[in-house]
């Protein structure tokens, strides 16, 4: 290829990519930079307050018991939801992979809870829990919330794991069976290790989603009762749009971002380790 054609191709690439990158730069990256700046300011528009305060909001957050509570709720919610989803998802995937005639119907039933808007899921579970009163009881609301989240997101994990399962040649399992391995031994020594990298990736996607989840808890519990279901995202939202302390809210949101980045980084390393072993 001549350098002229090369240059023309590069120009075409720039033209094709420009609109998408312009949207990402102006609607995602620029506001992100603004959020970092905002988190260093004390900005309360209703009182016309706008001053630079440096890291004071971060210092406040690290001492605020409500923030510590939100961090704890977020960790419990994320770890419990993702763990249950992985276990149930693998079980559903194993069941699905053995289906022949009704497989499409099975996948359809799984897609049903997955495709609903989170607000609808919240309304369904609000009605389901209504006779129990759990959503108003401090020790019960968080488990109730976790169950609702597991219900709507297990299908994602199930389909992810299922896709990997059907790509494993059946001959591997049959060979193990010939060698006298039972179902459980086959699952533990063959199926699970083959699934592990995929499960880690799916768990990463789900963890990132659980950390930023908003709709389900906002509608179902609003963070209550007594802040027992207030996640970091709800905490940040409360300061951004309800107490209208934009700088403080932005600082909390930036910390959510830091946690997301740490989790992503840790997962990528875990993934490398798993792939190195297999």
């Amino acid at each position, binding site marked *: 290829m001549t350098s002229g054609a090369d240059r023309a191709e590069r120009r075409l690439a720039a033209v094709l990519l420009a609109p998408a990158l312009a949207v990402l730069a102006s609607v*995602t990256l620029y506001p992100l930079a603004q959020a970092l700046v905002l988190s260093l300011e004390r900005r309360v528009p209703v009182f016309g307050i706008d001053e630079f305060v440096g890291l004071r909001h971060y210092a406040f957050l690290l001492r605020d018991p409500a923030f510590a509570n939100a961090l704890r709720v977020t960790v419990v919610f994320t770890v419990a939801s993702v763990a249950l989803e992985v276990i149930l998802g693998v079980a559903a995937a194993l069941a699905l992979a053995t289906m022949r005639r009704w497989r499409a119907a099975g996948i359809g039933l799984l897609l049903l809870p997955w495709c609903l808007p*989170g607000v609808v899921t919240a309304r369904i579970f609000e009605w389901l829990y209504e006779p129990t009163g759990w959503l108003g009881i401090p020790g019960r609301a968080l488990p109730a919330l976790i169950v609702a989240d597991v219900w709507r997101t297990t299908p994602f994990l199930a389909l992810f794991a299922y896709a990997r399962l059907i790509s494993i040649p059946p001959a591997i399992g049959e060979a193990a069976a010939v060698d006298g391995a039972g179902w459980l031994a086959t699952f533990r020594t063959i199926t699970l290790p083959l699934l592990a990298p995929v499960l880690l990736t799916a768990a990463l996607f789900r963890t990132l989603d659980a950390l930023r989840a908003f709709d389900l808890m906002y509608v179902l519990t609003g963070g209550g009762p007594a802040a027992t279901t207030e996640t970091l995202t709800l905490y940040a939202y409360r300061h951004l749009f309800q107490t209208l302390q934009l700088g403080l809210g932005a600082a909390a949101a930036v910390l959510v971002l830091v946690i997301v980045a740490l989790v992503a980084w840790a997962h990528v390393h875990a993934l490398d380790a798993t792939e190195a072993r297999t």
Partner: protein
Amino acid sequence: MSHRRELLVLLALAVYASPVAWQLLTSITPSEELQQGARLWPSHPTLASYAVVFTQSPLPRALVNSIGIALTTTLLGTVLGTLGAYALARLAVPGRRALVLGILMTTALPAIATVGPLYLTMRALGLRDTWGAVIIAHTSIALPLMLWLMARFLRALPRELEDAAFVDGAGRLQALRHVVVPAAAPGIASAAVVTFLLSWNEFLFAYTFTATEASRTAPVALALFPGVFEIPWADVAAASVLTSAPPILVVALLQRALVRGLLAGGVRE
């Protein structure tokens, strides 16, 4: 697996999905029966709640808003995403690896990190409470996913397809339009479905950037569904059914394309 065990699995999955059906049943149960504790099966099914939702609630307008916003987002995301993905998949893009990695990383960004400044910008630009604000925000969430998925699809297509077109004297753009896009249609369809669902279901941006019936989406209207002293359960159920109908319909019609796309790309929720 025997036929009987297969049906048992199907039954278990049906039980799993049953809260959706229960919501449907609740929506056709008269409010008086619900108050008397008849929570499972209506003895006198009625469409009265749907009549209430259609004549006395903001939901009809919200459904129109949602349809307009989700379709526009899908169109924008699909067109811009496919064009950009073609460049990433086939053309010489300087620093492509870093760019793809950056795009992948933006899919992990929590919306809460940008919603504050975006709100201030939308307000300053006079976009608050318009379709435009929600469409722009939704397109920005959909694009990274779209670029990444479509670049994978396009890279998997055989290069010979385009080479044949080049031999016939077609330029890059002509080859893209007449050869690549038709060949990639199944991939484009599945990515479009994912974008539609993403926009229809999104709550944080839609809730924050809207203020009145003029632009509130269906999930936002459902979250704010009016109830003065107690929740009008049957009406809420009817509004829920109406809000879930479009995503369910889209998934039912395009299940094959969607599943293929999900399985190939490993899409986040």
